[in-house]
């Protein structure tokens, strides 16, 4: 193995559909045992990138390894050692939970299949429902089944594509606890999400837009890299204030959070002078550190300016 420290180590990965470049020269390194968050707006190429990692799609350009196997030539080895949870539930709705797990176990040729299936049912708390048809399960249970199925063959890398979409907060928290447990046991996890609170639970993150990687690193690094400055305002008639702020020099984003307004921009001097000009005693202005969401929206806006 070339780089034993990295579960994923790729550079220049590119995929085109027709003349549209969906994934554009992405380089990514994910350490073993790390939970790596993958964020980006709809259509930014997250799913496509993951499909290339697990050998479902062949990249048009780029090289690299996944678990030490070449992503272009050793797709069969990769498939044997990776657990992939698709964005859309993709087990058989007309099969019961146990039948689905049995099927997966047979495909991977897992030794002592019965015991493995039973163990997986017990561990994820699915044992009592094992005869229920997958199609009749609620969203949260479907997600548990999908996770159980892609862990069955003891993969060394988990690729999870929006695993918590449409799952309630409690189930999401339990899911994340499970993921942290797995990572502590040495599993590497690459996970896509649109939830900011989930992004904050990752060891490291990457932000993708228009097929390009715009930022990457730990939470603090990503926040710092955006160089975004934010003011928060509370007080009366925030709607009028928001309308006034928009388009003023230095103001790039104005977002309402309940009774608070966040005003951000990358140019600190002009933002501050705009704010100074609009300050009124009835409003309470405060400098706050930029949030992840503000950073992502800012990243996306400037990516739009640069690339399209």
């Amino acid at each position, binding site marked *: 193995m070339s780089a034993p420290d990295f579960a994923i180590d790729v550079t220049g990965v590119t995929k085109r559909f027709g003349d549209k470049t969906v994934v554009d020269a992405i380089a990514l390194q994910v350490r073993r045992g790390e939970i790596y968050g993958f964020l980006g707006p709809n259509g930014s190429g997250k799913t496509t990138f993951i499909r290339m990692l697990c050998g*479902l*799609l062949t990249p048009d350009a780029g090289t690299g390894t996944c678990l030490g196997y070449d992503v272009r030539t050793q797709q*069969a080895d990769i*498939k044997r050692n990776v657990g*992939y949870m*698709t964005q859309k539930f*993709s*087990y*058989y709705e007309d099969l019961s939970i146990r039948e689905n797990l049995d099927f997966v176990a047979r*495909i991977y040729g897992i030794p002592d299949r019965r015991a493995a299936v039973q163990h997986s049912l017990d561990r994820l708390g699915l044992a009592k429902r094992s005869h229920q048809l997958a199609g009749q399960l609620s969203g949260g249970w479907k997600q548990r089944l999908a996770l159980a199925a892609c862990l069955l063959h003891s993969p060394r890398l988990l690729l999870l594509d929006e695993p918590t979409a449409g799952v309630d907060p409690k189930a999401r928290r339990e899911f994340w606890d499970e993921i942290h447990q797995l990572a502590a046991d040495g599993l590497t996890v690459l996970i896509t999400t649109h939830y900011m609170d989930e992004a904050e639970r990752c060891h490291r993150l990457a932000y993708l837009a228009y097929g390009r990687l715009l930022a990457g690193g730990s939470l603090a690094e990503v926040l710092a890299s955006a160089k975004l400055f934010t003011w928060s305002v509370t007080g009366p008639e925030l709607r009028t204030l928001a309308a006034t702020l928009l388009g003023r020099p230095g103001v790039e984003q104005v977002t309402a959070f309940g009774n608070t307004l966040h005003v951000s921009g990358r140019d600190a001097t002009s933002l501050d002078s705009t704010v100074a000009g609009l300050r009124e005693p009835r409003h309470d202005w405060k400098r706050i550190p930029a949030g992840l969401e503000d950073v992502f929206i800012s990243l996306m806006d400037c990516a739009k300016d640069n690339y399209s």
Partner: protein
Amino acid sequence: MSGLSFHRLWAVVLKEFIQMKRDRVTFGMMVGIPLMQLMMFGFAINSDPRHLPAAVHLADNGPFARTLVQALRTSDYFRVIKETESEAETQRLLQLGEVQFVVNIPVDFNRRLLRGERPTVLIEADASDPAATGPALNAVAQLANNVFNRDLPGSLAPLQAQNGPVDFRIHAHYNPENITQYNVVPGLMGVVLTMTMVVITALAITRERERGTMENLLSTPVRPFEVMVGKILPYIMVGYIQISLILVVAHFIFHVPMLGSLPLLYAVALLFIAANLAVGITFSTLAKNQLQAVQMAFFFFLPSILLSGFMFPFRGMPEWAQAIGSCLPNTHFLRIVRGILLKGNGLSEIAPQIWPLLIFLAIAMTIGVRRYRQTLD
């Protein structure tokens, strides 16, 4: 509540038209099916079949024999494709199904006719399809008597008034009692297999793609080829169960004769089942959803039932319809099943029907596998 609003109604109508326009396959079916049906029912189907292929076994070459052959040639009912002196050859043509009739003109036909001895002309008919033979047999007797009217010398004229100068005997082969079920029931085997095999495979693979389970499947170590064969095998079994079911019913309820070898039938059926499954797979790679898959299967099914010789005598259809029919696996399988069951045909007699099946299978498989691979990336 009379809350009908025309702008809302119109909105829905417009939306339906747009969706109809987008769904090319459905649109094609809506135009294609009526056209196809019109063509087939209007032209191909002929309840009074004519120009049925016949062979003449000529043991006498006298002028009256020649006149008779000439009359057969010019008649609408027959198309004499072979004139021979070998009896073995005519028998073989009948067995292979290349001719529907063999007209045997005996030795001394000329002399005995002139003597007023009413020579016997034996017409052997392949009656495995009664619809094809019935009308033609009636026609032949009439035809011959009219022909000899003008040629016979005056002294023999009285013969005309009686039973005619020639004694026509008709011998119906393979299905002497003209029992329609003998023809229809074996034919049903091909029809049922075509319908179920094509639809089921087309659905089975489209369903995986439509529900997204295909993506999951392909992310596992399972190979595309394994998926395909794994899907086909169960349906081959289903096909064999259907065949057995039809054979049991044919034997115990319709008392269809089973003269040939059933193991041979089962062996050849594998080719036919595989051909249909390959068509199903090809459709499943073309169809975007399950509905389209069913529509395509229906498109294939229609000619398979109407132009294969199942519904209407194959030889009675116009040339173009026969040409289309010859490209369909069901046409050949029908001949094989009827040949084996009703005529007791062996491998050598059904061989001419096997290679078209093989060619069809090879083409359909190639397209199916090619297209199937393309959909992965």
